[in-house]
């Protein structure tokens, strides 16, 4: 396949997504065959656009928090004074991953109430592992000769971290963020079971009223977002990797 074909497909997907969110009504004829005669074909209990934006906001906040904590944690345990905590932090983050998000929601609701908060907690815990693991891998696999040169030229530990270790680790860290975002985009839908405003509302409404069109709309929007964001971050990653000569 020619190189520009995927790019064009992505562009088309983005256009269709935007068109659908701005004017869902114009897609009604396409979805009509999926529903019973009197049922609505387009989600009618709120704006799809605002739900999408809220969904994205939830994922963004959770990923941002997960990135900050995971990267800081990875930096900490790769410093000489933090080496003892390497095993401990690994298992902590792994526990975050093994805990089912639904269980986190169930446990978090009594503590913080319904709404966005329990969803953020679940997404945050779920997003930690890929970012932490990737940052750790990157920081512990830097080229020896480069690290040696950084020390030999008289950089302090902090200067080495900021000027050499982090810039060189960036492509792998971004790869971790990319995985985390995609997981969070999908997982955020179940946040609607505890009244978080996400695209999960559309899917749940569809399941409750046996409306296939609703389920499809919610699912496809989340899917399209995941594909587009995944591709976008892949491109960012490749760009950084090219600049650092790692490619």
């Amino acid at each position, binding site marked *: 396949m020619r190189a520009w074909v995927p790019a064009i497909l992505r562009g088309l997907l983005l256009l269709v997504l935007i068109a659908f969110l701005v004017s869902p009504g114009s897609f009604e004829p396409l979805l009509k065959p999926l529903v019973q005669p009197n049922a609505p074909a387009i989600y009618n209990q709120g704006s799809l656009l605002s739900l999408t934006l809220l969904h994205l906001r939830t994922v963004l906040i959770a990923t941002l928090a997960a990135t900050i904590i995971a990267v800081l944690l990875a930096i900490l345990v790769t410093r000489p004074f933090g080496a003892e905590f390497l095993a401990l932090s690994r298992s902590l983050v792994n526990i975050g991953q093994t805990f089912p998000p639904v269980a986190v929601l169930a446990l978090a609701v009594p503590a913080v109430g319904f709404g966005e908060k329990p969803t953020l907690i679940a997404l945050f815990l779920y997003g930690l592992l890929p970012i932490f693991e990737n940052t750790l891998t990157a920081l512990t696999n830097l*080229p020896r*000769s*480069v*690290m*040696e*040169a*950084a*020390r*030999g*030229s*008289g*950089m*302090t530990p902090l*200067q080495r971290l900021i000027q*050499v270790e982090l*810039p*060189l680790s960036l492509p792998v860290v971004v790869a971790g963020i990319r995985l985390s975002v995609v997981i969070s985009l999908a997982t955020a839908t179940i946040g609607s079971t505890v009244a978080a405003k996400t695209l999960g509302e559309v899917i749940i409404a569809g399941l409750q009223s046996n409306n296939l069109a609703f389920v499809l709309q919610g699912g496809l929007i989340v899917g399209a977002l995941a594909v587009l964001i995944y591709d976008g971050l892949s491109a960012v990653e490749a760009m950084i990797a090219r*600049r*650092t*000569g*790692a490619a």
Partner: protein
Amino acid sequence: MIEIDAITKRYDGVTVVDNVSMVIEPRTVTVVVGTSGSGKTTLIRMINRLVEASEGAIRLDGEDNRSIPGYELRRRIGYAIQGHGLFPHRTVAQNIATVPGLLGWTKARTDAKVEELLTLFQLDPKTFGPRYPHELSGGQQQRVGVARALAAEPNVLLMDEPFGALDPIIRAKAQEDLLAIQKHFGTTIVLVTHDMNEAFHLADKIAVMDKGRVVQYGPPAELVRAPATPFVETLIGDAERPFRLLSIAKTGAAAEPGEAEGEPIREDRSQQEALADLIWSGRDALPVISRNGVPMGRVTLDAILKRAARPR
């Protein structure tokens, strides 16, 4: 001047460098040779404190190298390593500007230095300055690595097998460049290698290390004439001895008055090269000329052979 005073390094009770004392004269090239695991790398890494000594002291121009923090010390000492260790995310110019940047030089001064060094290493600043290390050939990367080590005008340059990754032709060129640079800046160079040809080619003095100790430290000719231990003898190689002697002496030193036919040889070529010329061209004598092409007499096969014989 670098004074190494009874320095010892132990790792978990294993002695890697054992009570080494030596004085390295300023503006000379000292080559540390030895087998792998002989402690030669550890020894030079103690000079810039990438490795902290267990016992003993190292003084640079009379000042103990522990009197300032390690990172400040390392900014004053050039350090070049095998495989260059260039920062892949920084351009050639940014790489060379590393230590000036750490020292807080002004941009104008840094830029001027980068340009000077690139020119000195025969890399056009306009072409190579903005490139990234992965866009250079191995030889170019190595030159940039040495240029980076020299950027802050250090008095001392430590080199750990700097030419180890280069092919023989580029390596010979890199060695010539290094000698020229050393003359240009008057830098004191301490170089680690396991290549004896390289050691004889570059060194004013050679230190031979064996099992953590310096078993002999002296000018190359002395190592050939009077090897201190059987290990030094093995390292130099029985079959190589006469050629090593010739390789460190200049043709000019063997010249005598007289005439000879054919292609002349320059007086600053090694006597080994003169011998090779004599054998290859089947002559008994070569005309010798100065660097400027002025005739200086001749060098005979006999004179060369005498000089290659075991000294008495």
